[in-house]
């Protein structure tokens, strides 16, 4: 049942993404100032939004683990964080490539970029911390606290381009101000849905691995007991 769901979500996400690529590459004209490089927005922004949604689920699952001590919650949190890291990396790399053309540099220590890098590094720390703690309960508690603590950076990333008195090189928000051309809306939304579907499929695969790992741990304990 779960395999079918993973396959359906993954296939649907891939088909939608192929439509986005077709639409973005062949259906939209080049932008006057940026040329073709602006098309990166259709993967750069949806990747970031998908990552934030997954970090959000990880935080809820972490709070759930701290309250109920249910290891499925811990597994959900780590699965979401790992997949979110992939999308954050996609966001950072595509943003850097866009910056190379538009700003003439690969990277700048701007508030938006730095806070996003911090978010990536904090959750990388989360993933590196887990194998270092052998006791499952202790590992779950420490991971949950770190996941909640690291999430405090996300509002800073989101607000970095909206704060007054903060000078940033990053483009100003266009989604809520209606600055997005109407012809961009469909590929943008579909790209976001496609990445969410692919992300969910990847989280389900990771969840399955975590459940197998728990089974392995219990078998190891059984072996020691026999």
């Amino acid at each position, binding site marked *: 049942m779960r395999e079918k769901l993973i396959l359906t979500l993954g296939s649907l996400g891939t088909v939608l993404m192929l439509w986005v690529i077709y639409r973005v590459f062949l259906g939209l004209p080049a932008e006057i100032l940026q*040329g073709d*490089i602006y098309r990166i927005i259709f993967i750069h922004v949806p990747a970031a939004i998908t990552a934030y949604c997954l970090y959000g689920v990880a935080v809820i699952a972490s709070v759930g683990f701290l309250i109920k001590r249910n290891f499925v919650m811990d597994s959900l949190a780590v699965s979401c964080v790992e997949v979110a890291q992939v999308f954050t990396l*996609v966001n950072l*790399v595509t943003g850097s490539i866009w910056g*190379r053309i538009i700003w003439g540099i690969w990277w700048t220590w701007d508030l938006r970029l730095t806070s996003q890098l911090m978010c990536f590094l904090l959750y990388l720390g989360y993933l590196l911390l887990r194998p270092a703690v052998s006791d499952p309960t202790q590992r779950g508690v420490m991971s949950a606290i770190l996941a909640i603590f690291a999430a405090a950076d996300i509002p800073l990333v989101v607000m970095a381009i909206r704060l007054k008195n903060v000078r940033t090189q990053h483009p100003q928000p266009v989604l809520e101000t209606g600055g997005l051309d109407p012809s961009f809306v469909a590929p943008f939304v579909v790209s976001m849905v496609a990445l969410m579907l692919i992300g969910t499929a990847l989280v389900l*695969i990771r969840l399955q*691995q975590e459940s197998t790992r728990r089974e392995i741990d219990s*078998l190891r304990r059984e072996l020691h007991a026999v």
Partner: protein
Amino acid sequence: MDVRNFTYMVYGYSAAWLIIVGFVFLLVSRSRKIDGELKRLKSLVEDRESEPR
């Protein structure tokens, strides 16, 4: 199609898909490793339980 900055756009999309596909391959190889470990442990437990005490 205007070809201005086209190459870097291709780099961007290629990098994005390489990262995602790379992660999928990592997941597949990890799944195989975990499943192999599970099978090994299950057969070990069965062997231990069938041994006369």
